[in-house]
C-alpha cells in the first residue's frame, strides 16, 4: 500500500528535505570541525589539533567543567531513574486503572511541565524554593529535574503499555500466575523497550536543561549547560567547541541506542 505512495511525491520536496537536513546538521558539523582547530582564534583555521580537548581536561577551566560534568551526569542519572519509576507506576494506573474521576486531572498534571513554557516553570520553582526557605543548590536542581522529567518518561512508557493487549496478562493469570507474577514475568518484560526509551529521553532532557537549572541552582554550583552558557557570555572560545562536540557525540550515541532498542523490539 505504501510502496505506491512515492508516486504522490513532489520533485521539489526532495530538495527541501535535503535543505532541511543541511540546515539541521551544518552548524553542528562546523562546530565539530572547528573544535579540532589548532588556532587560539576561532576565526582562522590553524590546522588540525586535539589541543582544545586536552585543554578541557587539563586547562585553567578544567576543574570547573569537571565538577559541572559530574553534577550534570549524576543529576541526569538520578532524576531519570526516579522519574522513570514514578512514570511507570503512573502509567500502570492511567492505562490499566480503568476510568476514574481524577484521570483527566492527573493527565493534565503530568502534561503540565510540557505545556507550560519552561521559563514560567523556572520562575515558579525559584519562587517556590525561595518561599519555603529551601537553600538552592544540588538538591533543588535534582528535585526540579525529577519533576520535569516525569512527563518525558511517561509518554513512551504509556504509549508502549497501550500497545500491549490485556490478553497477555490474562493468559498469565489463566496459567496460574498471581497479579504480581503476571506483572513481573509478562507485562514488565514487554514494557521494557518503552521504559528504556522513557529513561533515555528523561536522561537527555535532564542533561539538556538550561533554563530551569539556571533559575533553581543558586550560586556556586554549575551544570554543563550553565557552565557553557557562562563561558559563551564571556566570548566564544575553542574549548567550548570541544565540550560541545563531546556532548553532541554523547547525545548521538544515546539516540542511536534508543533507536536500536526500538528496532530490536520490532523483530520480536
Amino acid at each position: 500500500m505504501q510502496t505506491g505512495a512515492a508516486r504522490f511525491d513532489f520533485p521539489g520536496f526532495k530538495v527541501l528535505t535535503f535543505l532541511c537536513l543541511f540546515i539541521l546538521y551544518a552548524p553542528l558539523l562546523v562546530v565539530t570541525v572547528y573544535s579540532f582547530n589548532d588556532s587560539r582564534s576561532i576565526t582562522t583555521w590553524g590546522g588540525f589539533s586535539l589541543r582544545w580537548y586536552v585543554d578541557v581536561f587539563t586547562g585553567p577551566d578544567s576543574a570547573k567543567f569537571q565538577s559541572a560534568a559530574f553534577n550534570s551526569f549524576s543529576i541526569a542519572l538520578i532524576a531519570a531513574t526516579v522519574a522513570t519509576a514514578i512514570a511507570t507506576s503512573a502509567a500502570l494506573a492511567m492505562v490499566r486503572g480503568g476510568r476514574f474521576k481524577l484521570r483527566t486531572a492527573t493527565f493534565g498534571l503530568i502534561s503540565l511541565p510540557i505545556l507550560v513554557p519552561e521559563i514560567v516553570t523556572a520562575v515558579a520553582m525559584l519562587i517556590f524554593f525561595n518561599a519555603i526557605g529551601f537553600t538552592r543548590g544540588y538538591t533543588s536542581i535534582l528535585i526540579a529535574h525529577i519533576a520535569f522529567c516525569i512527563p518525558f518518561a511517561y509518554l513512551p512508557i504509556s504509549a508502549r503499555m497501550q500497545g500491549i493487549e490485556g490478553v497477555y496478562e490474562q493468559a498469565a493469570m489463566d496459567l496460574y500466575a498471581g497479579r504480581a507474577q503476571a506483572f513481573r514475568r509478562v507485562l514488565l518484560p514487554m514494557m521494557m523497550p518503552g521504559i528504556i526509551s522513557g529513561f533515555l529521553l528523561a536522561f537527555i532532557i535532564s542533561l539538556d536543561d538550561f533554563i530551569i537549572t539556571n533559575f533553581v541552582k543558586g550560586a556556586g554550583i554549575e551544570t554543563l549547560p550553565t557552565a557553557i552558557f557562562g563561558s559563551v557570555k564571556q566570548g566564544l572560545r575553542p574549548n567550548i567547541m570541544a565540550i560541545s562536540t563531546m556532548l553532541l557525540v554523547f547525545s548521538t550515541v544515546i539516540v542511536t541506542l534508543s533507536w536500536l532498542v526500538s528496532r530490536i523490539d520490532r523483530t520480536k
Partner: protein
Amino acid sequence: MAGGAASGGNATSEAYAPARGWLLLPTWVVLGIVVLAPIVLMLIYSFLTKEFRGGVIWEFSVDAYDQFFFDRGLFGDDAPTIQWAYIQIFWRSIWQATLATIFCLLIGFPTAYFIATRPANQRTIWVFLITIPYWVNLLIRTVSMRFILRDQGPLNDLLQWTGIVAEPLTIINTNLGVQIGLFYSYLPFMVLPLYAAIERYNFSLSEAASDLYAPRHKILTRIVLPAVKPGLIAGCILVFVPSLGSFLAPDLLGGARNFMIGSLIDEQFRGSAGNWPFGAAASMILLTLVLLVLMVLARQQARLEKGAG
C-alpha cells in the same frame, strides 16, 4: 470477538484499578508540590509588593500588572496612558514565534511528506536523521548558530568569498538572528509530529483521488492536508509555544535590543535590579497567552476528531 469485543477491553484496562491511588501517589506528590503549587504561588507573588534586592513583601498590590500595562501607573495623579514598552516585547515575541512556526511549516511539511512517501525500510533511517538534532542539547545548537552567524563567522566568510556581499552581514543581535535561531531550534519539533500524521495517512485515498482525475497538487490540498491536520496542529503547537517563551535564542542571538518575553522575565530575577512580582506577573501573562492558544487549538482538534468519527 462477540461480547468480548465490548467487554474484553474494559476488563483488562481495570486490572490495576484497586491500586491506582497508590500508583499515582508519587506523581501527585512530586508534580503537585514541585510544579502545580509553585505556579499557584507565582500567581500569588504577582499580586505582592516588590522588595528591593529581590524577593517580595507580603502586602497585596497590583503594581506589577499596573506597571506592565500603564505608564506612570493607573492610580497616579495624571491620567494613565498605555505603557507600550512591555506590550511591544510581548508583541515581538508573538510575531517572532508566529514567523518561526510558518517557516518551520514551510520546510517541515515537505520534509515530513517526502520521508513518509519513502519505502518503509528507508523511512526509519530518515526519521533517525531528523531525530538526532532533536535530541542534541539546545544550548549547544544555539551556540553553534551564534558561531556560524558571527560577523567573522563561516557564513559571512562564504558570502564574501562568493562575492554575494562586500561587507560582512550583521545577523547576530538583530531580529533576523533571533528568527533564524528559533527556526533552527524548533524545526525538528515540526517535522516529527507531521511525519507521524502523514505516515498514518492511507495513500490509497490519494490513489482514489487520482483515479477521479485530481492532479497532484489538488490531491495534496484537498485530500492530504485535511487528513493530516491533527499532526499539523500538533507540530504548530510544538514550535509556537516554546518559541514564545524561548530564552536562549533571543539571549545568544538577539542581544539587548531584541528582547523577547523570556529575557524580560529572566531579567526580573537577576540580581538587585530585579522585580519579582513584575517577573511573576509577566510569567502569568505569558502562561495565560499560551493556555489561550492551546485551548483554541485543542478545541479545533476536538472538532476535527468529532468530524472524523
